[in-house]
């Protein structure tokens, strides 16, 4: 039966053309270059934006409410779906919070594997960022190259945990698996090729006239704006604040590895692009060091804390008490001490908010490149 649907134009309450010659342009929520489901309402004077109003929430799935109704370990796979481009990083953020609450010390091998996963995820995320942003700006070749390299990294993670995109590869108290046989050799092989690949992208983009015109001096975020909006990561470092949480509040083994913090005081799209490229090189540097660390670690993967973490499988199979504890932990969940902990995560929400202040004064084509370089992921904005 043919049912008539009742959809009326959504903007009946917005006057599109007004007497002061301001046009309201609706961008999204299903715009191919809005990197997800961002809706922007732009007030335009000719082609110039005078007021921007980002509307988010099109991917709000109620994760906080889900978390309220779950035990700690159950929520872990849901964190994958927040920043789905680098999902292990989210697993890690959640696991770290719970570990801090319990006061758990993770074995060294788990730390090494976690760092590998985090950096591989960073590379994946940056490659994806590069590919999609370049595609939005019009560089199709870089899109294909970026995805080519990203697929190899996804293969690596698939070898490790079996999933391509949503890994759940970091657990509360450690990591579930040891590295597979060829992992280190394969990763080394990839890392050896990476500098040449990054150089390829840079050769294609760095001095490309179109890329420069759309990136240089576009989307300048001042230091004050970046701080006030709570920006983090490359968004902050591109605006002249030399703050990298890996150096300032080191977690895992980041205080044992050598790496530099790339930063810039320009604050424009181009600076952010250069930062991402530099960060990929730094990531490779970290990964080389972490790969060397792996050899000298003892094989424990999960922390020993019978109250919170299930015993190793061999104990569960052989020892009665471990089995009982395992049952309790699976059915009732762990009961960490009551308290509060704050672990910095989910920056994209603020990075989307910046657009309110950032876009006015720019022109319509700049919108796409600015959204691109803010690197927002909507699973994380809307949760």
């Amino acid at each position: 039966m043919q049912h008539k649907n009742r959809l009326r134009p959504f903007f009946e309450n917005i006057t599109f053309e007004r007497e002061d010659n301001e046009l309201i342009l609706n961008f999204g929520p299903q715009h191919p270059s809005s990197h997800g489901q961002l809706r922007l309402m732009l007030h335009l004077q000719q082609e110039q934006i005078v007021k921007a109003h980002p509307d988010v929430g099109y991917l709000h799935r109620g994760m906080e409410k889900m978390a309220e109704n779950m035990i700690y370990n159950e929520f872990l796979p849901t964190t994958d779906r927040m920043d789905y481009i680098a999902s292990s990083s989210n697993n890690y953020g959640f696991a770290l919070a719970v570990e801090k609450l319990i006061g758990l010390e993770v074995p060294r091998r788990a730390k090494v594997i976690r760092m590998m996963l985090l950096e591989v995820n960073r590379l994946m995320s940056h490659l994806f960022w590069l590919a999609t942003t370049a595609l939005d700006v019009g560089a199709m070749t870089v899109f294909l190259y970026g995805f080519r390299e990203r697929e190899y990294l996804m293969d690596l993670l698939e070898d490790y945990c079996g999933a391509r995109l949503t890994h759940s590869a970091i657990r509360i108290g450690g990591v579930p698996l040891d590295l597979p046989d060829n992992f280190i050799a394969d990763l080394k092989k990839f890392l050896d090729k990476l500098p040449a690949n990054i150089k390829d992208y840079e050769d294609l983009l760095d001095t490309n006239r179109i890329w420069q015109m759309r990136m240089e001096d576009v989307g300048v975020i001042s230091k004050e704006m970046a701080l006030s909006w709570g920006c983090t990561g490359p968004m902050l470092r591109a605006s002249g604040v030399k703050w990298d949480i890996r150096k300032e509040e080191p977690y895992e083994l980041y205080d044992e590895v050598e790496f530099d913090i790339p930063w810039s005081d320009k604050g424009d799209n181009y600076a952010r692009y250069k930062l991402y490229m530099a960060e990929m090189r730094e990531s490779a540097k970290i990964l080389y060091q972490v790969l060397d660390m792996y050899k000298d670690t003892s094989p424990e993967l999960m922390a020993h804390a019978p109250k919170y973490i299930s015993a190793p499988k061999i104990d569960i199979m052989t020892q009665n008490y471990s089995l009982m504890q395992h049952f309790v932990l699976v059915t009732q969940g762990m009961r960490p001490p009551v308290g509060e902990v704050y672990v910095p995560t989910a920056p994209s929400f603020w990075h989307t908010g910046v657009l309110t202040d950032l876009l006015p004064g720019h022109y319509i084509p700049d919108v796409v490149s600015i959204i691109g370089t803010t690197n927002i992921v909507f699973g994380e904005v809307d949760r």
Partner: protein
Amino acid sequence: MRPYTPKDNVQKKSYYTDRYWVAPQVAKFDVSTDEVFAADLKVIKGKFKVLDAYIQVEQMVVYIRPEDNFGVLKLMRDSLEYTQLSEMSAIDWLADKGQFEIFYQLLSMNKRKRIRIKCFIEENQAIESVEKIFRSADWAEREMYDMFGVKVNNHPFMKRILMPYDWEGYPLRKTYPMQGDEFASWYEVDKIFGKEARDVIGPEIRDAAAVDRYDTKRFARLGHEVAYGEDISEGEPDTVQTYQEEGGVFLVGKLTKEESVVITDRDR
């Protein structure tokens, strides 16, 4: 996911049914154990009334009066170098105390310290906006209003941010059911097709494991394809699944396994 139980009075009644369970607490330390925090707290105490202060998991928590929030945060930014508001929101304690707890998570990059400013407000009490001090509070306060229904005074654009503008209810309150109320469950149907289409489309199936084997209107199975709405209580025909029809397809070449090349090395 485990079955959902309403958690209206979750704060009053322990979630754990174990009668003898005494929940351990994360250790709280006195502020004097950390010089930087002690100095900060002294400055705050000089100007505003501090109800409680302690250090938990390396971060200082300061309880203030709700009417002081703007002043305290301005002091924190201008005098104490806490330049970033990393997060702010509310916690629902309505069942327990009839109050919301508002927290502001601040970061000082020069001191490498994080501080949490907290205050309690009544259910219908509004709080002053800090958007003038930290721009990030603009969105955070909208989210707080959207999720908890906490109103914020002097905010430039106090509207819902994550849920649609015409949404009813505040999802993160403990009394809001996880799977939505009556309004939520018919929201998209009402909006797109109208209330009269409710009967045609039917209620939401919330049990993810619910599969009616004989329902040919909703489920299709590979290998047993039948027409829409057909009665298959007597069994259904097997349909062999090949991605191409036997004998090939008009103008499309068919590759056999022998002809194709299988790549084993992924050439990293």
